[in-house]
């Protein structure tokens, strides 16, 4: 297992000190992503999937429960995971620093590790279907789909073993969504990374994932193979999601 969430609960406190309300964003969630596998995580507003993504990325500490990466508990310092775990996030508009050239953005994860970029940037850009000349462009010169390709190149450049895609295609035109989803599938076949693919859109999740977990109100209500989600999901809520497609 590359990533394991074991009985994770995350509680947020909100409101003024004396009338503080405690909300469970995740309640006893157990998830695991195997080597080379894509786990799809689907759920609607407030289901806790964004918190799950933050926990998986080490950006949010669980209130209780354990998180293991590659069999070992999460290191105290996030930097120790640098380069081994990456993410492609939601808004194509804000996914790239507008003041940095595309090439600099793609090279940054290598830069952080102190590794020389060399030809890795242009090579990676070509792998995601962008010409080498894109390296010298600024994000505002790119379409939404192109920006998301750059984000994928940036995530892949350190050859991580695990990538989180958090609503990575939700803001794109439908026909572009399929292009990006196909790209993710192809790259995964080539590089063999494991992935956590998070979306509110069961259609997209079902298209790329090997297994699917459905979240609702902070809990995982069903986990099953993708095939099951095409034919016969067990939980009532999963059926509802399927009908809405």
């Amino acid at each position: 297992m590359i990533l394991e969430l074991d009985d994770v609960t995350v509680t947020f406190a909100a409101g003024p000190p004396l009338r503080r309300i405690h909300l469970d964003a995740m309640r006893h969630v157990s998830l695991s992503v195997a080597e080379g596998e894509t786990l799809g995580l689907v759920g609607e507003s407030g289901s806790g999937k964004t918190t799950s993504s933050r926990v998986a990325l080490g950006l949010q500490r669980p209130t209780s429960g354990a998180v293991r990466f590659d069999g070992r508990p999460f290191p105290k310092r996030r930097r120790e995971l640098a380069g081994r775990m990456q993410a492609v996030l939601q808004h194509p508009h804000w996914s790239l620093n507008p003041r940095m050239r595309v090439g600099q953005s793609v090279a940054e994860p290598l830069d952080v590790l102190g590794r020389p970029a060399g030809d890795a940037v242009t090579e990676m850009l070509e792998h995601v279907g962008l010409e080498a000349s894109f390296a010298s462009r600024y994000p505002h010169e790119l379409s939404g789909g192109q920006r998301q390709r750059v984000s994928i190149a940036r995530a892949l450049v350190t050859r991580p073993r695990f990538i989180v895609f958090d609503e990575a295609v939700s803001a794109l035109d439908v026909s572009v969504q399929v292009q990006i989803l196909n790209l993710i599938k192809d790259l995964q076949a080539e590089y063999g990374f494991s992935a956590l693919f998070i979306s509110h859109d069961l259609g997209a999740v079902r298209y790329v994932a090997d297994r699917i977990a459905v979240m609702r109100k902070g809990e995982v209500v069903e986990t099953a193979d993708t095939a099951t989600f095409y034919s016969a999901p067990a939980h009532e809520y999963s059926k509802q999601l399927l009908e809405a497609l």
Partner: protein
Amino acid sequence: MSLLTVRNLMIDYAETRALDGADLEVAQGETVGLVGESGSGKSTLGSAVGRLLPRAARRSEGEVVVAGEPVFDLPADRLRHLRRKRLGFVFQDPIASLNPTMRVGDQLRLVLGRGADVGFHLGRVKLDDPRVVRSYPHQLSGGMAQRVAIAMAMATEPELLVADEPTAALDSQVREEVLNVVFSLAAAAGTSILWLSHDLPAVARRCDRVAVMYGGRVVETGPAREVLGHPAHPYTAALAGSAPAAAAHGVRLEPVPGRPPVLTGPSPGCAFAPRCPFAEERCEHERPQPVRVGDQDVLCHRAGEVAA
């Protein structure tokens, strides 16, 4: 009689043609989804309804009629009256659409009149927190700001609400909630909705009718269920077929090759022809005229054959 009629509208920006003869009708109380990808001209069409186009835009042909009033030929005072009484607009970026220097309550009062019950209008969009009234727009979350914008747009109970991708800038978490608010308020007030979106299935789920745009024209309109389930235009079919949800297990979808066109002038034929698997010779240089296929109006030379 229809509430909104757009007839053969052609709009140009400096170098590009945004609308290339668009036709659209919205009836009283009807909800219409206007679907198109980036650059299809849907935002230009939405803005043209209230003559809210950027300065650089030029209308070369066509007209827009709202409740019998020709929008582009109205004097300034009648146009203002039309915008104030009959039209409501909600845009993509909610925070930018509010005045950053005014508290939310003051802005609402400006729209509603001094004695208005601001709390009631905010309650209608499920913003019950009294702090909202005293907040400045930048202190609100995107979802909250969009609800304030909706409250302002719906306060006058307009006859037509134009919502230009109202949820595009929001987290997916709050999208559904915001849409629920829009549709329930509109239903209660009898307001027609023109909802601009790039998501065909999402639109088809909520709207009575769908209009699909490509290359600055509305290429197919009809009942939502029909357009989604039995598309008559090859582009609609490609759009519906390219949604990941449409894929069967283990099947790899191949999106339409090529990219949407950027028009510099009128398209000589069908704008989709270069990407269309059914294109014939005449598609290249003969502009398609509307054809009726089943319940749908379609701009395609081969509509009858292809759909069947």
